[in-house]
């Protein structure tokens, strides 16, 4: 019997510090067969093990067409993620996955795409952006709205110039520390709505970020006439198995790990438990 709880061993091949508290890791599976057959969809996540510390669900931030390696972008906030911060190229971790629903990638073909991300929420959307760049003709207008706390907290900035050749990239930050140069917007991510070009018709929305952010994003977009059945959100819940067994991630009858993390907004809105916006309650 396959044991879904036993991670594959992977070696860190590259460590790139995105910001003061976030790092992008490149991993290579030790087992050659796994390396060749392993596949995933944008928006899925892996359970990453630091042996002796524990496991944490982390979105895959590389694209399916990036073969031979897999990348994760990790914000160091707790035990596992801080332990990762101490890892160097050559160190081993455990990886199992890929788990969960991805973004409805094939539904995006022939449509406009609006991506709204906050903070670390850009990580699971990076694979979408990278695929869009590689198959640009299959999509109509693609616009990315991205907000972070400060300019220094923006992820993937070294890739922005290239991204901008393919998609409309609009940036905002909550605050600009004194002495920092910033040519973009200041304010929460929804302040970008006033300047964005995306229109409700034929547009699919993908959003990921803090739950409170997604609440206001969804509320704003619905108000502007975007269709609730074409808004997709990626949810965060505590998880310990990734495969619908440990129960920790349930939202109503849904398991965030296997029915999500990407949900159609409509599906969540129908649940009795107040979800988007029920922050802390």
């Amino acid at each position: 019997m396959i044991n879904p709880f036993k991670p594959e061993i992977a070696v860190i091949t590259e460590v790139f510090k995105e910001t003061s508290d976030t790092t992008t890791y490149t991993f290579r599976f030790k087992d050659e067969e796994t390396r060749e057959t392993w596949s995933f969809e944008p928006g899925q996540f892996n359970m990453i093990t630091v042996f002796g510390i524990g496991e944490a669900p982390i979105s895959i931030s590389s694209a399916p067409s990036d073969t031979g390696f897999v990348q994760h972008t990790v914000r160091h906030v707790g035990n596992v993620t801080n332990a990762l911060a101490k890892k160097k190229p050559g160190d081993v971790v455990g990886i199992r996955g890929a788990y969960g629903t991805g973004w409805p990638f094939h539904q995006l073909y022939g449509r406009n795409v609006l991506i709204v991300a906050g903070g670390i929420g850009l990580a699971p959307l990076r694979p979408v952006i990278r695929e869009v760049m590689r198959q640009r003709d299959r999509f109509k207008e693609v616009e990315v709205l991205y907000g972070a706390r400060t300019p220094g907290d923006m992820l993937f900035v070294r890739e922005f110039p290239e991204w901008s050749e393919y998609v409309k990239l609009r940036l905002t930050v909550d605050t600009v520390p004194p002495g920092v140069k910033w040519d973009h917007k200041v304010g929460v991510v929804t302040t970008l709505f006033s300047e964005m070009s995306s229109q409700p018709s034929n547009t699919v929305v993908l959003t990921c970020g803090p739950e409170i952010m997604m609440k206001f994003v969804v509320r704003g977009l619905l108000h502007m006439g975007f269709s609730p059945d074409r808004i997709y959100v990626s949810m965060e819940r505590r998880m310990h198995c990734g495969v619908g067994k440990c129960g920790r991630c349930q939202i109503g009858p849904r398991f965030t790990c296997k029915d999500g993390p990407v949900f159609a907004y409509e599906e969540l809105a129908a649940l009795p438990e107040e979800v988007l916006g029920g922050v802390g309650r």
Partner: protein
Amino acid sequence: MAVTRTSSVPDMVVLSGELWQELLKLVTAQYKVIGPVRRGSEHVFAPVKDPRDIDMAYVTTILPPKKVFHQPFQVLFSFDTEEGTLAEEESGEEKVLWGIHPCDMHAIAILDKVYGIEYPDPYYLRNRENTIIVAKNCTEVGENCFCLSMGTGPALRSGYDLLLTDLGGRYLVEVGTEKGRKLLSGLELVPAPRVVLVEKEKRLSQARQKFKKRMITQGIQELLEENFRHPIWEELMRECLACGSCTMVCPTCFCYNVVDKIDLDLKTGKRQREWDSCMLLEYAQVALGQNFRRDRDARIKQRIYHKLLYYEPQFGTLGCVGCGRCIGACVKRIDITDVVSRLAESVESDR
């Protein structure tokens, strides 16, 4: 093509006095048996060495027999922090789970779905497959039992390897599977006449008369969906101790936590999972302190809604089997059937 003696065992036998004792002796001698034994004034499922320790008259146990399959603590594998080498724990021996009640059998059927679908759970399934289940119909009813309302008792129709019914000093034994038949193979047995089924039915219908507790199941889904905001939840929030007992004892609860237990050399260790509970504050807390169910009422609702509303779309069945353990374990006597009745009453009086 050896013809085993097993095939000569009839499908239905009646065992009394000596034969019954002989069966117990035979089974406990040949297998690791886990059966109901006394612990103070309660009962637990525990390994039985001496058949006299089995108490067939038990009403319920502190923990349900699910603990044999989904263990409170389960080592998943051991590791080496530098190499990452993974050694899996060895599988256990064949055992017999003796005397479980219909409600618990139904609960196991639910867990079979939880652990059997999509990514089958090897630890659960290994324990499950290694176990022969001897179930026992209930001819007596406990004060908290309401399986009758849930359609999960007092009689069992399927799922067992052997099924026992107490006919008063004699046991009707029905064979459910070949695994079960094997247990009877060492005895000289004659088939029971079909009339004992009449006797069995009589005893079970007597039992049905004895239920004091009842759960309203009709329209329960709508009832809950419409009353997510209801004063009763605030009242329960004031009462509930959030101690977690109700969920720890529930036969259908499956939540767990995973922890790495590292040795003092900081090089080797084990990954282990252990039961957890949605009633506990830290359960839904994530890094940086955010908690998706900080308030007690949110957690109480999660438990009750999960049992009575969410299992259905998840696993095609209600998540409560009416064993009554959560009622019995609650220091505050919070009663799931009472909560539903009161919701129904308040809706009734609103009309």
